[in-house]
């Protein structure tokens, strides 16, 4: 059970949220550029480490938020509104041999 800090509501259970994947690549602006759209729609950096992602507080304030979460330890370093520029932590958190 993740506990996600909603910038509006505070720390809330994962069960109140729905996930919407990576927040790492911006939506392409050119509606004529199919190749760029395919890259945006289908391809992912899929990092083993810190990951910027969108969550929807569907059973709370219903706001979309951006979360910086570690994909091995699940530690959450920051959360904010979708247009916020949240810094990516540099080092992985100290959690030993997690995930092996």
């Amino acid at each position, binding site marked *: 059970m993740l506990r996600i800090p909603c910038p509006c509501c505070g720390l809330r259970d994962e069960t109140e949220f729905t996930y*919407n994947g990576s927040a790492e690549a911006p939506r392409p602006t050119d509606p004529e550029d199919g190749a760029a759209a395919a890259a945006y729609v*289908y*391809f992912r950096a899929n990092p*083993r480490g810190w990951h910027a*992602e969108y969550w929807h507080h569907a059973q709370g304030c219903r706001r979309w938020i951006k979360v910086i979460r570690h994909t091995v330890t699940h530690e959450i370093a920051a959360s904010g509104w979708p247009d916020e520029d949240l810094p990516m932590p540099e080092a992985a958190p100290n959690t030993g041999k997690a995930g092996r």
Partner: protein
Amino acid sequence: MRYSVFSLARAALNGHKSWPQAWRDHALRDRYRVIVVGGGGHGLATAYYLAKNHNITDVLVLERGYIGGGNVGRNTTIIRSNYMLPANEPFYEHSLKLWEGLAQDLNFNMMVSQRGVLNLYHSDSQRDAFARRGNAMRLCGVDAELLDVDGVRKYAPLLDFDNARFPVQGGLLQPRGGTVRHDAVAWGYARAADRLGVHIAQTCEVTGLVIEGGRVAGVETPHGRILADKVGLAVAGNTSLVAQMAGIELPIETHLLTAFVSEGLKPFIDGVVTFGAGHFYLSQSDKGGLVFGGDLDGYNSYSQRGGLAEIDHVLTAGIAMVPAMSRVRMLRHWAGRMDMTMDGSPIICTTPVENLFLNGGWCYGGFKATPASGWCFAHTIAAGEPHPLNRDFTIERFRTGRVIDEKGAGPRPWLQ
């Protein structure tokens, strides 16, 4: 030494001191014709079929941990070929056919247990979608039966037929579906590949790919560089990370899938049953444990441990389907890393790097695909081009939009 009841009896006379290693450890050569990265089910099957079907025995399988330590050793062991799309169904049926003769082929009893796979439906529209799938199977010559509720009652009497929130209307049954003792698949392929001359190296991580002039030349390991004419990647769960070593970005996200086992029980349920009004599937192993699972945790993760939210969800769905599970005790739960592609179908293909081949993106369907995956990947590596059965399993399909999306869930792995 060949495995049989006779060799077992002979060995019993000398206290089982005569059994050789199931697979051997070798001093590594500087160079191999083919290196397969990943000693899971798919990698080992690939090595076996390279040797058996293509007479390429100068093969090295490199495994970071112990062989079979990834998803082949942590799945819910289901085999089936109940797909709808022409790009999938013949491939999975080929796999099921290979399963049916695998114990004899490998001389290793991995207990291929064909007691049926039943998908329940709970509405007319679900029935129609299942019918489309069942008809697709039948058009491929594959066994499929559409059961009404009475048929389901006969096959799986333990389901909730009386008080269900979403009453069972019927189900799509594949009688030849079933389960296989998962670890034994990795061991059986390893042993058979070893006998054909394949080298298997455990605890040997690939830290880099040697790429010269757009062509792969070998791999880097902590024990030094090992050269190869061709390199095949079969590292499901880490595919994005290993492909990154070759500068290849993939249509893959890594997600968690939790699996569960109960305490050992006397026979409780015979075949595999999947719930249609939620994510849940259940079978009973030959050891007596109920083996079950549900949906992805729903967020990217490499952690191999499931979250409590989904665990509650799965167990709740379990009781909704089989109320008699109520007092059954769950013994253990664990999670595997799923290479979720953006259409739910796998990738077995050539890559932009010459002589580098990729096998991955198995979503949560990799186990049942093991034999066909190895078969087709071996062909792809040996011939330098795909087998007809994996023709469509390309990366390119995500550049063109010609996706193979069984469920129509779109590029959202957590909904597939």
